[in-house]
């Protein structure tokens, strides 16, 4: 039998642990940031001519300065991740709604299970599949797009064959993050208070109107955070991009052509094995930039949701 006093102490310890875990996040992230800065320091504090030589060796002389190097990488990273999210977002919400509100109960249970399973498929398998199966299979489609929609600059042809392009990578990443977003969104949608749904239906709402009135507003913050999780994954994805994309160092929107853009994470993986001390510093510098970008993206997303919540 526990006396109130000891209950109070347990309470305090529990609270302290919870706080410690919260603060641990700060510490860990601080440690990572500090480490990145520390390892990237030679970029700023080191011998600048050696730095530009290293960068030049990475790029075959196309860039000699860190910002000229990281700029296109950053552009490529954001482009690929944003495209992936754009493709996955609506499809994911569609599937989540299908499972939570449209599919018959038994089917929904089975589908839920499949989605959870797919969320767990390792990226190296997506890389294998994307590189070996999707790349040849999707070429006719991209070719069709380039032929008929080529007047839109982003679809300017000729479509690269094999399609180791930003467009293909975006599709693979979209497929990768789809189950993640779906899984979380579905859970949120399933939690919509029945009272809200009934309120909408009783007003004579159709099913879709009910979804719009009750389900989507309720799930909004969850959907956004699920998307951020997906976006985070897409921004940091290494293997699938590495195994599929034919990289380039341009600021290019030509999604269907090869050797246009590259992502930071894949670039680190491609260059790290053969990099020397200073080379690693440069690569970690690019990692730091990615870190900052994720920070900004999340910060903006948070601001947007906060504003909506206030209203």
């Amino acid at each position, binding site marked *: 039998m526990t006396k109130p006093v000891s209950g109070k102490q347990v309470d305090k310890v529990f609270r302290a642990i919870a706080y410690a875990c919260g603060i641990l996040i700060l510490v860990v992230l601080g440690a990572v940031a500090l480490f990145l800065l520390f390892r990237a320091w030679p970029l700023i504090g080191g011998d600048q001519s050696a730095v530009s030589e290293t960068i030049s060796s990475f790029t075959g002389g196309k860039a000699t300065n860190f910002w000229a190097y990281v700029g296109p990488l950053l552009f490529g990273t954001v482009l690929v991740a944003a495209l992936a999210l754009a493709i996955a977002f609506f499809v994911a919400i569609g599937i989540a709604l299908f499972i939570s509100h449209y599919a018959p109960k038994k089917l929904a249970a089975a589908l839920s299970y499949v989605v959870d399973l797919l969320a767990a498929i390792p990226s190296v398998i997506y890389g294998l599949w994307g590189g070996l199966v999707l790349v040849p299979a999707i070429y006719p489609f991209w070719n069709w797009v380039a032929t008929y929609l080529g007047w839109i600059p982003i679809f300017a042809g000729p479509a690269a064959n094999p399609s180791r392009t930003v467009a293909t990578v975006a599709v693979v990443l979209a497929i990768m993050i789809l189950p993640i977003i779906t899984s979380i969104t579905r859970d949120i949608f399933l939690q919509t208070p029945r009272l809200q749904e009934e309120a909408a239906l009783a007003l*004579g709402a159709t099913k879709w109107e009910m979804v719009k009135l009750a389900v989507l507003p309720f799930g909004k913050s969850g959907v956004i955070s699920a998307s951020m999780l997906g976006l985070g994954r897409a921004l940091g994805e290494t293997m699938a991009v590495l195994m599929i994309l034919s990289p380039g160092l341009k600021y290019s929107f030509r999604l269907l052509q090869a050797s246009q853009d590259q992502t930071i994470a894949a670039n680190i993986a491609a260059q790290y094995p053969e990099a020397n001390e200073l080379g690693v510093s440069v690569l970690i510098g690019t990692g730091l930039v990615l870190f900052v970008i994720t920070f900004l993206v999340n910060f903006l997303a948070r601001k947007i949701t906060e504003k909506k919540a206030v209203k």
Partner: protein
Amino acid sequence: MGQRIDVNNLNIYYGSFLAVEDVNINIDANKVTAFIGPSGCGKSTVLRTLDRMHEIVPGAHCTGEVLLEGVNLYAPDVDPVAVRRDVGMVFQRPNPFPTMSIRENVLAGVRLNNKKISKSDADDLVEWALRGANLWNEVKDRLDNPGVGLSGGQQQRLCIARAVAVHPSVLLMDEPCSALDPISTLAVEDLINELKKDYTIVIVTHNMQQAARIADYTAFFNLKAVGQPGHLEYFADTTTMFNNPQNEEAERYVSGRFG
């Protein structure tokens, strides 16, 4: 004008559990009919079959007929959405839309039916509905505040305002006043009295005085035993029900009244 409802041989199930058995009842147009009975006897369940809200619960279904002005609501070609447009509903627990302002909550149903509403029409409608629910004075200065910021009773009145704003021909109310104070209750009862000129009203209530005050007819539901299905024990006009019931169970129930 209100429409009459005829319920024939209605059996209502939750999955394989028969919750309510063999209900036959004729609900007159432009009258108030009250459902009374002990907790768990299926009042809410029966009420929800009248606008096909019952079938929303997974596995829930029913057999038998519910005729709205002679048209069977459960006929294969009837769209439940259309039914619910015609038959409004107010729930036991207030359920305003949490993301909407008070004003938007009132207009929610109307906006579904008609996208193009002028601002002044909308303003009038909001005022009309909120006055009807006796909420106007309390909220008129903060129509743009969120509906969930109100107290429980205010929220329930907001829900009533929302339901009447779509001007249904039948209005179902499941203990709409159970979270209201007497003044609001009185206002709602007056509203009901006024609305019955145009609408048919069915109300579930635990408050027998309320039933006696406002209902033209009263249906008494009962339960043989726990776990058994509920059933309609006795249906009569309200005066008979409360003064001279021709049914022993009903007699026992209404004479246990108090207050």
